[in-house]
């Protein structure tokens, strides 16, 4: 039994659902994956895995509207060896993570998302204060090459 947070849905041919899979103390830090032939389900659980051997917290998803490629976004947790944020490409049928394309080293931020405008990519992330709000938010603009 896994806790399910931040569910994301992708639909190439078969619906692919990805989420932050964890236990109640957030000690597993995995990514969950389920599939369905219809958007409304029922969904079949595939597995909950450590992405490319790493931890995963606050799973986010970004699809580039210009080329259709999708990317997983996640931090690797709060431990000393973690505190990075990863941007990892997914394979073309969205059934697995492919390779890390960017790492935000020791940013120690969570809940990452990317917004794409015509010229730029904007990474939005949150500082870590549990469920309490804080006065800080980060925007990392990046102009497409």
């Amino acid at each position: 039994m896994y806790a399910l947070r931040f569910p994301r849905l992708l639909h190439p041919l078969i619906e692919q659902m990805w989420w932050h899979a964890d236990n109640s103390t957030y000690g597993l830090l995995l990514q969950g994956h389920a599939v369905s032939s219809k958007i409304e389900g029922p969904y079949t659980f595939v597995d909950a895995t450590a992405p490319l051997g790493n931890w995963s917290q606050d799973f986010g998803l970004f699809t580039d509207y210009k080329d259709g490629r999708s990317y997983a976004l996640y931090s690797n947790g709060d431990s000393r060896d973690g505190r990075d944020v990863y941007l990892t490409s997914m394979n073309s049928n969205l059934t697995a993570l492919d390779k890390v394309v960017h790492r935000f080293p020791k940013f120690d931020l969570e809940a990452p998302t990317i917004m794409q405008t015509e010229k730029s990519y904007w990474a939005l992330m949150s500082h870590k204060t549990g469920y309490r709000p804080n006065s800080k938010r980060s925007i990392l603009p990046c102009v497409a090459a």
Partner: protein
Amino acid sequence: MRTFNSQSGFTLRIEGTKKTTHLYIGDQWDSNSVWDSRYIWLPVRTDESKKTLELEWHDVYDLNVYACFYFYRGIHTN
């Protein structure tokens, strides 16, 4: 950047016939009853030359998802 007591969750790109609008979708966590947390959906304003991004607060607004104009206090954005 002010997010009105919310945490970044997703942004929705809505390509309309008149314009493209980006909506910020954030989690307003309620630590006393996490299951009763709420979402906040707000239009995003960006300035490419200044590299700034802001959320626009509106108590009430209406989005025309086809043309992608949004309305608040009777004002028609463009």
